[in-house]
Each structure stands twice: as C-alpha cells, then as structure tokens.
C-alpha cells in the first residue's frame, strides 16, 4: 500500500489583505427591471467578499428607490434586439415589441424567471444589501429635477448627495456605471 502524503494544514486566507481598503461603487441610472439587477447582484457579491460597497441612484435609477415606483419596475422588449420568443428561440420581431400588452407580458415573464432562481424583487434585494452593510445614495440633481424629497425614498437611504460628494466618496473606488 502506498503511504498517503499528508499535506501541511491549509487554511483559507479569508481576510485577504488585498481587499483591505478596497471599495466599489455602482451608479444605477436605469429604471428598467432588467437593468436594475446587474448592480444589485454584483453589489451583493462584493459585500459577501467583505468589500465596502456603495450604490448611487441617478436619473431613471430613482425608480428603484422611490416608494411609489420601486414595486412596479417594468421590462420592455422594445429596442432590445436580443429578445427571443420563449418557443423556438427566434427573435421577437421589433415591429411587435411596442404592441399593447407586450411590456406587461415581458415583465411578468422576467419576474417569474427571477423568482424561480430565488432572486429577490428589487426592494427586497436592496433590503438584503443594506443588511449586509451596503450604502445607498440618491443623486441631488435627479431629486431636484423630479421634486423628490427624502420622504419619497426608501427609509434606509444613506442620503441625497451631489456629484462632488459622490466623486469625493469614491476616492480610490472601482466605479461601475449601469
């Protein structure tokens, strides 16, 4: 019988120093359902790696954090050439995309696919991100343009900040615009 080699005890290096001081910031500028998720999924992953994470909501991205809109994000196949029909993997003709009921149907389908993977709806997902230590910021200019105040936004926003504040805050951060 061959003797088995005993490796020295390997201990995973969870508190990797290379992550020390690492910061990541996402700019959410879209209010479409499909465009809401990339930042949420990546922010959630970053937090799970112990990275300081910020999300800055601007322009249409406000729909993700406005109390009266955040539960009603929609997905439209219009202008999306990658939209395929569920059967036969054929392109949805763009001429059909703007037809009445198409957005509602596409939204329903996408929501189901997301739920099937146990991925939370946008407001729940942001709850999870905040619970994991993520920071949520709203853009001052977008708030002014739409006459939106803190009372219109999620209760757990860190604040409404201007462009300079954001630039200052993300010193040394990796910034991802969505």
């Amino acid at each position, binding site marked *: 019988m061959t003797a088995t080699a005993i*490796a020295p*005890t390997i201990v995973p290096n*969870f508190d990797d120093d290379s992550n020390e001081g690492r910061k990541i910031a996402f700019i959410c500028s879209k209010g479409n359902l499909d465009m809401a998720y990339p930042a949420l999924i990546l922010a959630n992953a970053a937090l*799970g790696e*112990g990275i300081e994470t910020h999300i800055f909501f601007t322009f249409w991205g406000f729909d993700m954090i406005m109390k009266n809109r955040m539960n009603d994000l929609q997905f439209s196949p219009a202008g999306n050439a990658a939209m395929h029909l569920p059967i036969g993997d054929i392109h949805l003709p763009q001429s059909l995309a703007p037809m009445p009921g198409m957005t509602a149907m596409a939204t329903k389908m996408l929501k189901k696919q997301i739920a099937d993977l146990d*991925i939370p709806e946008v407001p729940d997902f942001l709850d999870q991100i905040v*619970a*994991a*230590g993520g920071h949520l910021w709203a853009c001052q200019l977008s708030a002014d343009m739409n006459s939106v105040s803190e009372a219109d936004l999620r209760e757990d926003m860190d604040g409404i900040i201007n462009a300079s504040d954001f630039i200052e805050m993300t010193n040394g951060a990796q910034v991802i615009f969505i």
Partner: protein
Amino acid sequence: MPVAELAGRQVHVNEEGFLTEFDEWDKELAKVLATNIGIEMTDEHWKLIEWLREDFKAQGETATTRRLQTAGGFAVKDQFSLFPKKPGKKMSYIAGLPKPHGCV
C-alpha cells in the same frame, strides 16, 4: 485531493483547505476549523452551521446568504455579524461544505 491532519486525524481537503468529504466532519473538527479562521463558536454559530449541513444534505448544494435568510430564517445582518466580512465562505468552511455556488 490532499489529505490534511486536523483535530488529530486525517481528512480530505481541497487546495484551499475546504473539507471535501461530508462524512469526515464533526463538531470537534468544526471547532478547529473555526479557530483556524479566528472564529469562536457560540450557540448562534452552531445553529447556523448545523442548519447549513442539514440543508446541504437535502439540497446537494451549499445554501447562499439569501437562502439562509429565506429558508433558514437567519437574518443577513446576523450572518455578517457572526461570520464577519465573508460569511458565505467562512460558514461553508466551518461546516465542511463547498463554497456556495449561487450568485445570490
């Protein structure tokens, strides 16, 4: 797969040090794994680790932070305070399970 000596016995681990054999795990070993990464086990830690193992047995994969909250009832905030910074990886290491595979 390398074999490592932990808690006075030989166990199979992968290149990162995670146990690869579900049945080689017990609480005594888990205590050593926890100490290795600077975590002192309390009742709260054990509850979560034991739930993870049960869930793995049923599902065949390691629960994510999300599943721990929705199916196990362990609040995300608590997961982060019990296993700081990298809860998903730390919990699965101590539980003798693979790292969670899911994104959310």
